[in-house]
């Protein structure tokens, strides 16, 4: 049992060091996220009433788009230098290795987006309930995007053009976006947001159980 934890930790640490050594993807995705959020106050005028009703929605949409762009990096570097074959053909179950990579992707791309969106929320002066709702929905939502996105990333690995990955992942991430924006609106009206959080948690658990299996079999198919 110990060696499984060890291999999980080794792959996880390897991916973390890789992302922090090649900072480009990491910084691009966060810069992209911030720029999109800042576009909206510029277009709608910072004091307009309309703005602070839709700011949480904007933050969520740009979080979704930023994760879309960063999904490609999970398997691209492994696919290019061939270490994907070592992952598939080794003694440890592929599901374990793939979930290590997905967790590494969530840590390196999901958590910074959550931190930055909260700071943006503070800058754009959102009330505390909205901030809490935004935090909860992001904490539950971004892992779903990473999990579903990793399967799509495997399917579109090595194909030209990363548009295909976004076309595949966006329709599937609609429920996450819908439940999060409803939760935020309820929070702004002071209503309880328990129902949407349960939904998001339900989808998250479904994604955690199914996505690594799907990603593992997709990897085997993609390489054959």
């Amino acid at each position: 049992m110990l060696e499984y934890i060890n291999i999980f930790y080794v792959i996880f640490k390897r991916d973390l060091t890789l992302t922090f050594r090649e900072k480009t993807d990491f910084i691009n995705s966060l810069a992209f996220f911030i720029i999109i959020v800042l576009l909206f106050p510029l277009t709608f005028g910072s004091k307009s009433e309309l703005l602070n009703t839709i700011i949480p929605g904007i933050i969520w949409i740009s979080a979704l788009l930023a994760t879309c762009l960063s999904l490609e990096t999970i398997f691209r570097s492994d696919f290019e230098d061939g270490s994907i074959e070592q992952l598939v053909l080794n003694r440890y179950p592929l599901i374990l290795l793939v979930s290590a990579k997905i967790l590494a992707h969530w840590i390196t791309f999901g958590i910074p987006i959550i931190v930055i969106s909260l700071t943006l929320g503070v800058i754009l002066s959102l009330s505390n309930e909205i901030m809490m709702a935004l935090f909860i929905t992001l904490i539950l939502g971004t892992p779903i995007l990473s999990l579903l996105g990793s399967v799509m990333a495997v399917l579109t690995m090595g194909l030209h053009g990363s548009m295909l990955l976004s076309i595949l992942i966006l329709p599937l991430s609609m429920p996450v976006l819908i439940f999060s924006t409803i939760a935020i609106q309820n929070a702004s009206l002071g209503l309880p947001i328990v129902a949407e959080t349960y939904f998001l948690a339900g989808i998250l658990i479904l994604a955690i159980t199914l996505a690594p299996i799907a990603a593992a079999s997709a990897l085997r198919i993609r390489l054959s």
Partner: protein
Amino acid sequence: MSKFSINNLECVRQNNILFQGLNITIKDHGLLQINGANGSGKSSLLQICSGLIEPTAGEILWNDKNTKKYRYEFQSNILYLGHTNAIKSSLTVEENMKVMHAMAGTKSKIDYSIILEKIGIPNTNEILTCNISAGQKRRVGLTRLFISKSKLWFLDEPFNALDEQGKKIIEKIIIKHCKNGGIVFFTTHQEMEINNYPLQNIHLGNNNA
């Protein structure tokens, strides 16, 4: 005493038949060389045997058990090394070897510097692999042969991008592995690579089509 056998394997790629009705059985101490022109299906045969690709027909048995059903039992005894040497360019040589060590699952502590000396690129532990030459990268990839303890090796053109001295080192390690009970499949496009060890030879040419 383990046995690796292939029964009437067939592979059709883009509607031309690479090979058909291939039967091979290899026991311990076996060494098999697969040679043929480029694109004659050498790598496909290797990838099919290692389970990466599915053949259009036929099956692969390890100790008479179908490798697809007993996938992880088979996979814990093999080492596959493709054309690309599967190392991360932004990690240092030692970090790459640490990952290989964990992937190979060997419990014993391994001193990486000794292996690097054996393979001919001493004290390059701390250098980032992007700053070393292609030949040295190939050798870092080949350090897997020292680290892994699997019995069955599938090596795809282990000798290319290697100078004379490198070829000798790899030849020595392959023969040593075969001597103490290992099985090695390797592909090459030159004629005879290893000549001081009894080896089976499969020639894949377009005459099979």
